[in-house]
């Protein structure tokens, strides 16, 4: 029975349904034929009401679903359970698919099923968005997973690890299987776990919204690394904390990278500065060497030309000695601790030891007596005096350490003869220099080992065994050896056996007189130097050696003279000169006459100049040179000259 009211309601519903465009709302009869159609249905599916009314609703299904009997099944479920709801692909009129959310409700009149109400929503866009989200999540997961420089992982609200990326594996050493599900406190040092640091970190993150700190963390293998850690809380839609994102960086690596960067910068800095500094210090050395060349050369000649006179000769020797010291000073200007050649000299042991006495007594403390006893007459020994002093100092330190409660250290020396050769101990005359203490002593097995490098007898808290290996090295290089005698409770004595200095050895500080043989070929030599002092000196030396000398004050002048005098055999030139340099002069000379010999007299500074390929092979004579050095140098060249003459 239809009342007016019903009719009014009915038309209102129809208006409502027909104005809806976001949902397809239509009815089916009991068999599934379309009996009504709203604008939403028309919009999604593309059919007008005229086209579709009376058609079976299965045409909205894909052929595959139709074959599977999905449409009839849907109606059956709806009829039996009062509702069918599903999502799936549906077809538009033009054949295009769309992802639909479908609800089918049965319509009964009394007990009789008269049809179905069907509401369909087009979810294609939502599905695309969902898929895009899933894809972007997947990409993000791959991204995070692939990051190797940062450990990025998640913790559940209780601090258990529930994700693990490649960076975390690399930095901390655990694989995902090993660590997921474990509490993150295992990355902390035990003492920090005890102090509750992990819990504090999470509660700070929870309350402040972020936790950031640097500190030591442990890798799986137990090694430490300095970590930069950030913990961010992750909140769900409801505002509850669902976990924590944890990002850890290994800053040890950063420090190392910084160090490498620093080293690279340093190398660059060095290469840039070295030249400037080389020129600066070298420049000083160069000027200084020029002066020394003039002084030593002139003195050398004087010594040769003047007869021995007890009133003047020692003064001359003294002056030469002073100049030689100056030469040592220039050597020092860039001397780093490269291994120095042992300089064997004739050393007066009592004099050397007494010279150290004040320093030792002052520094060794009041509880220890230092006594020195030497034979009345003691010949000089062959050794390096500076190294011997260092050796003695080390022996004294060792002796001191054996006297924790005070006592006596004796330094003695006497001459002894070794009658027979025993291994490295060759027969001959020696001075035995001994350092002994009346201290704690050592058992024999330890006494036998103490000269091994890095062996220390005294344990933590006392001294070094390094000194003894140096002492032994010095003794051996001097042609001697060391002996160790020790007795527990009675003390230790270390003997340094040093051979007597031969007559050929210079006394410490004295200068060898070099023999000059000037029987060589008589050459024509062009000497070039812008420093008149050096020029005069070199000319005198060349003249002394019996050669004919031509002189030039500059490279340019030398070139003119060289062209005028084809008889010149040798050009001996300074390197650093205003105008044409020695190398440039050499190039010109070689171009004019390839057989002419050119010698570059280089001061220390010139070592820093990089010569061109043509002059790199030229003979170089280091300044300052002595008469003997110049003689042997020219002698070597003269052979070449005569050989060239034969060619």
């Amino acid at each position: 029975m239809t009342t007016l009211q019903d009719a009014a309601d009915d038309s209102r519903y129809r208006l409502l349904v027909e104005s809806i465009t976001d949902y397809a709302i239509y009815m089916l009869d009991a068999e599934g034929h379309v009996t009504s159609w709203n604008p939403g249905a028309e919009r999604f599916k593309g059919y007008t009401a005229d086209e579709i009314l009376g058609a079976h609703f299965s045409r909205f299904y894909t052929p595959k679903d139709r074959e599977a009997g999905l449409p009839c099944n849907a109606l059956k479920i709806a009829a039996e359970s009062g509702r069918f709801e599903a999502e799936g692909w549906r077809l538009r009129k033009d054949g295009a698919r769309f992802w639909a959310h479908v609800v089918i409700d049965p319509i009964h009149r009394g007990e009789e099923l008269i049809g179905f109400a069907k509401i369909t929503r087009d979810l294609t866009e939502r599905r695309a968005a969902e898929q895009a989200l899933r894809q972007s999540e997947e990409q993000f997961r791959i991204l995070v997973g692939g990051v190797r420089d940062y450990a990025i992982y998640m913790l559940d609200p209780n601090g258990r690890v529930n994700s693990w990326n490649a960076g975390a594996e690399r930095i901390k050493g655990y694989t995902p299987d090993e660590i997921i599900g474990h509490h993150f406190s295992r990355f902390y040092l035990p003492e920090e776990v005890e102090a509750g640091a992990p819990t504090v970190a999470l509660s700070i993150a929870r309350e402040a919204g972020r936790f950031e700190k640097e500190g030591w963390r442990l890798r799986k293998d137990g090694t430490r690394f300095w970590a930069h850690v950030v913990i961010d809380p992750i909140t769900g839609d409801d505002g509850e904390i669902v976990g924590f994102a944890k990002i850890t960086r290994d800053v040890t690596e950063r420090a190392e990278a910084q160090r490498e960067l620093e080293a690279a910068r340093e190398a660059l800095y060095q290469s840039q500065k070295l030249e400037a500094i080389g020129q600066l210090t070298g420049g000083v050395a160069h000027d200084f060497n020029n002066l020394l060349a003039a002084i030593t050369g002139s003195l050398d000649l004087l010594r040769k030309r003047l007869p021995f006179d007890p009133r003047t000769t020692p003064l001359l020797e003294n002056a030469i000695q002073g100049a030689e010291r100056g030469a040592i000073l220039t050597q020092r200007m860039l001397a780093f601790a490269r291994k120095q050649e042992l300089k064997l000299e004739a050393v007066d042991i009592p004099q050397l030891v007494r010279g150290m006495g004040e320093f030792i007594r002052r520094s060794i403390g009041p509880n220890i007596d230092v006594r020195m006893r030497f034979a009345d007459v003691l010949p000089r020994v062959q050794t390096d005096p500076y190294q011997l002093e260092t050796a003695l100092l080390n022996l004294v330190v060792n002796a001191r350490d054996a006297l924790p409660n005070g006592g006596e250290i004796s330094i003695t020396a006497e001459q002894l003869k070794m009658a027979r050769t025993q291994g490295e101990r060759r027969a001959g005359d020696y001075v035995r220099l001994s350092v002994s203490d009346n201290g704690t002593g050592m058992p024999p097995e330890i006494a036998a080992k103490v000269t091994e490098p890095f062996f220390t007898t005294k344990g933590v808290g006392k001294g070094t065994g390094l000194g003894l290996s140096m002492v032994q090295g010095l003794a051996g290089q001097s042609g001697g050896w060391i002996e160790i005698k020790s007795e527990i409770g009675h003390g230790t004595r270390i003997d340094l056996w040093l051979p007597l200095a031969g007559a050929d050895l210079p006394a410490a500080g004295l200068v060898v007189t070099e023999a000059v043989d000037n029987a060589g070929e008589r050459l024509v030599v062009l000497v070039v130097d812008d420093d008149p002092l050096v020029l005069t000196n070199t000319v005198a030396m060349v003249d002394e050696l019996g050669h004919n000398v031509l002189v030039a004050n500059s490279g340019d002048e030398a070139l003119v003279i060289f062209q005028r005098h084809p008889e010149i055999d040798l050009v001996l030139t300074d390197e650093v000169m205003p105008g044409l340099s020695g190398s440039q002069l050499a190039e010109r000379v070689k171009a004019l006459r390839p057989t002419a010999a050119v010698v570059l007299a280089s001061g220390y500074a010139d070592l820093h100049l990089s010569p061109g390929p043509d002059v790199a092979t030229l003979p170089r004579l280091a300044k300052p040179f002595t008469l003997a050095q110049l003689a042997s140098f020219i002698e070597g060249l003269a052979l070449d000259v005569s050989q060239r003459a034969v060619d």
Partner: protein
Amino acid sequence: MIDRLVYRSHAVAILPEVALDRIFRSSVPNNARMNITGALGFCEQTYIQLLEGSPCAIDELVKTLEADARHTQLTILLRGSSERRLLPGWSMARVDLAKAAPETATLLEADDGLGLIALMAALAHEGVAT
């Protein structure tokens, strides 16, 4: 006679080995000018330097060193005079204290100036491989 002095100081630079190169480049010509010789090395953050020279030159250098911002807490462990130098060949030998790290640490702990001088000189004479 020369004065011999050993001091320790705390390196300001985090990496003394890097700072050391610069120190050497400035100190070597300076020491050569003042006729001062010696050795310099470091153990962790502590510089140890042995200096030898005329008393006046040493006094002057110590004043300069005390004002040097590259280190702090300069402590002179020992100063005395002697006839000759231990290291006449070096304006400033760079010694490799890492070679004797435990010994150096022990000597530093005891502020043992004499021991440090003996060690530095022995190391300098033994040289370093470069």
